[in-house]
C-alpha cells in the first residue's frame, strides 16, 4: 500500500502526463466528465458520478474507421491508425470498471474489435473507491464492491491522502513510473474507509433490490408481459439513458462527405431511436414499447444468456438520475417484482 497527499495530486497528474495521456474527471461549464488532463484543467475527484461514463476512453462516442480520398480517377482508402500510445484512466469507479468488463465481453470476443482492443491494451485503469455512495447507486445488486474496486491500480481517499494499491502488472508499471511521489503506508486507514463505505452501501435504498426472475432463461416469460405496455408510456424516446450508460455498446456506422472524400465513422447508437433497427426492407421494431423493452431485456436477459450470466447493468444509477421522464431500470425491475406471485 502506497499513499500520496491530496495536495500533491497535481504533481502526480503532471508526472503521468509526461509520458502518457491522462484521462480523468474534469469539471467544465458546471459538469464533470472524463477528459484529458492539462495544466489548467480542473480535476474533480469529489463528484461521485461523471455525467457520461468513462467508457469513452475505450469506446469513444464517435471515431473514424477509415477515410476514402479521391484523387483524379483513383480512390485511396486510408484506414485509421489504431491507438498506439499508452494512456491512463484515473478515478474510474467500481461500477465503471465492471462496465469495461461488460464491453470486453462484446468487443474482445471473436470477431475482436481491433480499435477497442488496441485501446484496452494501451490503457491503464486507476480505479477509485466511492467515498460517499448515493441513493441512486445499486452496484451491490450486481455483486460489485465499490469499496474495493477492480482495475490496474485501486485507490482510496481517506483524510488528506490518496491511498494507492497496484493490482496488476500494468498497475505495477504505473506505480514504478510515479514511485518517487508515493510513500509507503499502513493499510489501517483504507480498512476503515472500506468498512465505512460498506456500511453506507447497506443503507442505500436500492442495495437490496431483488433480481429474481431476471436471467438468461427469462425471455419467454418476460417478453410478452403486458407490463411493458404500461411501463414505456412516459418514455420520450431520447437516448439519454443509453449515452450515459457505462455498458451500452451499440453503435451505428455512417459516412461523412468531407467534400474531398468520405470518412466512414462509427458513433454510439441508441435502441431508443426509431431508426435503430432500420434495414433495407423494413424496421423490425415499429413501436416505442418494443424499443423500450429491448433495452431492459438486453441488459437483464439476453446479455446474461450469452455471457455466462453476466448482466449488462452495473448499477451506476446514471439513468436513474438523468432520465427526463424519471424512468429507469430500477422501476422496471421493481414493477416485475410486484407482478410475480
Amino acid at each position: 500500500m502506497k499513499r500520496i497527499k491530496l495536495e500533491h495530486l497535481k504533481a502526480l497528474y503532471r508526472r503521468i502526463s509526461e509520458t502518457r495521456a491522462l484521462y480523468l474527471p474534469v469539471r467544465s461549464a458546471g459538469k464533470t466528465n472524463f477528459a484529458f488532463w492539462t495544466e489548467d484543467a480542473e480535476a474533480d475527484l469529489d463528484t461521485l458520478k461523471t455525467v457520461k461514463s468513462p467508457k469513452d476512453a475505450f469506446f469513444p462516442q464517435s471515431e473514424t474507421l477509415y477515410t476514402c480520398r479521391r484523387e483524379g480517377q483513383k480512390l485511396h482508402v486510408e484506414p485509421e491508425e489504431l491507438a498506439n500510445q499508452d494512456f491512463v484512466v484515473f478515478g474510474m469507479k467500481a461500477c465503471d470498471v465492471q462496465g469495461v468488463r461488460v464491453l470486453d465481453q462484446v468487443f474482445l470476443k471473436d470477431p475482436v474489435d481491433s480499435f477497442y482492443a488496441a485501446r484496452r491494451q494501451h490503457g491503464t485503469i486507476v480505479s477509485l473507491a466511492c467515498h460517499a455512495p448515493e441513493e441512486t447507486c445499486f452496484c451491490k445488486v450486481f455483486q460489485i464492491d465499490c469499496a474495493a474496486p477492480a482495475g490496474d491500480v485501486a485507490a482510496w481517499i481517506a483524510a488528506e491522502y490518496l491511498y494507492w494499491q497496484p493490482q496488476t502488472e500494468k498497475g505495477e508499471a504505473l506505480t514504478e513510473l510515479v514511485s518517487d511521489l508515493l510513500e509507503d503506508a499502513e493499510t489501517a486507514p483504507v480498512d476503515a474507509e472500506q468498512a465505512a463505505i460498506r456500511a453506507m452501501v447497506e443503507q442505500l435504498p436500492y442495495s437490496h433490490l431483488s433480481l429474481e426472475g431476471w436471467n438468461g432463461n427469462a425471455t419467454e416469460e418476460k417478453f410478452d408481459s403486458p407490463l411493458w405496455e404500461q411501463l414505456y408510456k412516459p418514455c420520450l424516446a431520447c437516448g439519454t439513458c443509453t449515452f450515459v450508460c457505462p455498458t451500452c455498446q451499440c453503435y451505428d456506422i455512417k459516412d461523412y462527405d468531407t467534400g474531398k472524400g468520405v470518412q466512414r465513422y462509427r458513433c454510439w447508437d441508441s435502441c431508443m431511436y426509431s431508426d435503430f433497427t432500420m434495414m433495407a426492407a423494413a424496421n423490425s421494431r415499429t413501436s416505442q414499447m418494443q424499443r423500450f423493452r429491448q433495452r431492459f431485456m438486453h441488459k437483464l436477459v439476453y446479455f446474461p444468456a450469452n455471457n455466462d450470466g453476466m448482466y449488462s447493468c452495473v448499477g451506476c444509477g446514471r439513468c436513474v438520475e438523468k432520465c427526463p421522464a424519471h424512468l429507469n431500470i430500477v422501476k422496471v425491475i421493481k414493477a416485475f417484482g410486484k407482478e410475480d406471485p
Partner: protein
Amino acid sequence: MPINQEEFRPLIVAFCCNWCSYAGADLAGSSRLSYPADVKIIRVPCSCRVNPMFILRAFEKGADGVILCGCHPGDCHYSTGNYYARRRMTLLFSMLDYLGVENGRTRVEWVSAAEGAKFSATMNEFVEKIHSLGKNVRLGDLRCRN
C-alpha cells in the same frame, strides 16, 4: 494558425433566386462585368427557399462567406417570398452574431434582373470583406479542413 493572406482564396456561396438575382448574374456576365471566381452560385427558385440549414451547411463544408440574393422586396416572383426570407435571415444572422461568428460572413442583397452592375459590385465587395475576415474557422467542420 496564422492565415497567409496572399494564399487565402475564400470560398463564397451565393444563393441566387431564379427570377431576379440569377438573371442579374447573367446580365453581369453578358455585360462583361467581372467578379471574383471565388463566388459559387447556387440557383434557388426563390430566396425563401433557403432554409437556414443551407447556410450553416455551406459553412460546415468549408464556405468562408454566404450571401443570399433575391428580388427586391415587393418584386418577388411569388409576391411575398422574399419578405419571409427577410425575417428568417434577420433572425439567423442575429443568432450567428450572438454565437460569436464574425459579422459580415453572411449577407443578404436584393438584386434585380436589370442590376448586373450591382451584382458584380456586390460580389466584389463581399469577397473583399471575406478576405479581410480570413478563413471561416468557427462554423467549419474539422473533417472538411484538409
